């Protein structure tokens, strides 16, 4: 029973943490953008503008709730909700820290240790399209629909390359469970060292999946007004924007888990299991996550946007063949080694 209670507590903690990190990602984004563009950024709400995300949230809450007349009401509401849910669901399979022994019980720092965890990740990511499509279509607006379709085709295209890059990773790890994958990377055996090409493909795909620059075509203001969320306002718009940051956080976590050893750090194997090890592991994990979030933001404010055909060409003509090549090379290597 205590097991179940702990699971509930842990899930709420992860939930809150995701929201919190996402919230402050917006702040970080703006601050970093300001830094990169040599300006101040938010600095009014609280010291260094640290309460700015809260203020934004309150503002969104109190804005006028607007549902276009010709839209499909239920789907219009469902779209952002669905998007939010899929964004939050992903973190369920990510191990954030080593196991914690407490009172003779072992508590897993993972919401669910699925033996097909990677597939779960993949499945949830592929569902992310629905939120965008439903929302864009339900708005009954040409620009929204175009944005939604762009987003959907972009997501589907890059899912393929992503899946193929994960296949080569699975070949190395010979397990689908994220926990196993993390455990295998102890010491310096990070997967990025064995799968550099796979990592490159994966991270590009992660940028595309989260609709971050330089792949933020679905919401490209110059072409499509506001993309699929043109018609959305108030907290529904907030959901869309917020879910993106959650996605960014989850992507960073997945990247860290799959390629950078997760909570593993050097000399961790020499430590006894205990609270210290768990906390230290969690700290390492979040450090890696923050690094990737920083990378996301850094790239956003550094690189220009792709053209749509360039994006499709990159996905279909560069990344997929490269991923296939990677699979072949990995397979050959495994065969050679055995």
């Amino acid at each position, binding site marked *: 029973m205590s097991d179940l209670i702990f699971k509930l507590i842990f899930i709420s903690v992860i939930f809150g943490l995701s929201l919190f990190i996402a919230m402050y990602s917006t702040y970080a984004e703006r601050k970093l953008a300001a830094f990169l563009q040599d300006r101040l950024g938010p600095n009014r709400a609280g010291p260094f503008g640290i309460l700015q995300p809260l203020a934004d949230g309150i503002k969104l809450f109190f804005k006028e709730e607007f549902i276009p007349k010709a839209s*499909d009401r239920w*789907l219009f509401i469902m779209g952002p909700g669905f998007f939010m849910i899929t964004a939050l669901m992903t973190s369920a399979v990510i191990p954030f820290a080593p196991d914690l022994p407490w009172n003779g019980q072992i508590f897993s720092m993972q919401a669910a240790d*699925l*033996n*097909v965890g990677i*597939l*779960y990740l*993949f*499945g949830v990511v*592929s*569902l992310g*399209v*629905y939120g965008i*499509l*439903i929302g864009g*279509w339900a708005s009954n607006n040409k620009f929204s*629909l175009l944005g*939604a*379709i762009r987003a*959907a*085709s972009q997501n*589907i295209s890059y*899912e393929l390359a992503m899946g193929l890059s994960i296949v080569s990773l699975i070949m190395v790890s010979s397990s*689908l469970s994220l926990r196993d994958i993390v455990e295998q990377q102890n010491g310096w055996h990070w997967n990025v060292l064995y799968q550099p090409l796979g990592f490159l493909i994966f991270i590009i795909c992660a940028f595309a999946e989260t609709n971050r620059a330089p792949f933020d075509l679905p919401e490209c203001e110059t072409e499509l007004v506001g993309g699929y969320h043109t018609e959305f306002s108030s907290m529904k718009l907030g959901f869309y924007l917020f879910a993106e940051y959650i996605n960014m956080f989850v992507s960073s976590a997945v990247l860290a888990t799959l390629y950078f050893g997760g909570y593993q750090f050097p000399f961790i194997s020499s430590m006894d299991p205990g609270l210290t090890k768990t906390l230290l592991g969690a700290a390492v994990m979040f450090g890696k996550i923050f690094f990737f979030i920083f990378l996301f933001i850094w790239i956003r404010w550094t690189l220009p946007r792709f053209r749509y055909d360039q994006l499709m060409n990159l996905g279909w003509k560069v990344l997929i063949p490269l991923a296939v090549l990677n699979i072949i090379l990995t397979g050959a290597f495994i065969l050679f080694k055995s």
Partner: protein
Amino acid sequence: MQNLFYILSGLTIFAAIMVIISKHPIRSILFLVFTFFLISAHYVLLNAQFLALVNVVVYAGAIMVLFLFVVMFLNLNQDIERFKSWIPLSAAAISGACLFLVFFSAFRTSVLASHENTGGYQQGLVENLGEVLYRDYLFPMEICSILFLVAMIGVVLLGRKERVEPIKNLVP
């Protein structure tokens, strides 16, 4: 555990019925996605976790997105289901119901072999499946890849917009 099964079953049937009685194609699609989720849940209950996720990825993540795409592209907002006459409808319903009754009664009275489940409950795991797949079903697996290739070429040909210019006689 039993109740979970019955709740899931009831939901599944409800969602499936909603698929066929929804007026709007988009609603049908969404209910169908829901149905697939529920079926995936059944798979999880049956300890077929790999298939459950593959079901989500393939059906919900790929096939239904395609449906959604097509419906959105074709912009099928208008209701095309003009009610014609009772005859084909009732004929369809009656024949379907008859067939259902036949099957239902057949299954209800069928005597199934007792559970000689000797292989443990691990057959749904990826390792197990992969072993069987690549040991016993290698050839169908390869055929599947050819099927995909053919389907891909077919779709590309179907979806191509412009007609190929007839090859001009290059030799003067």
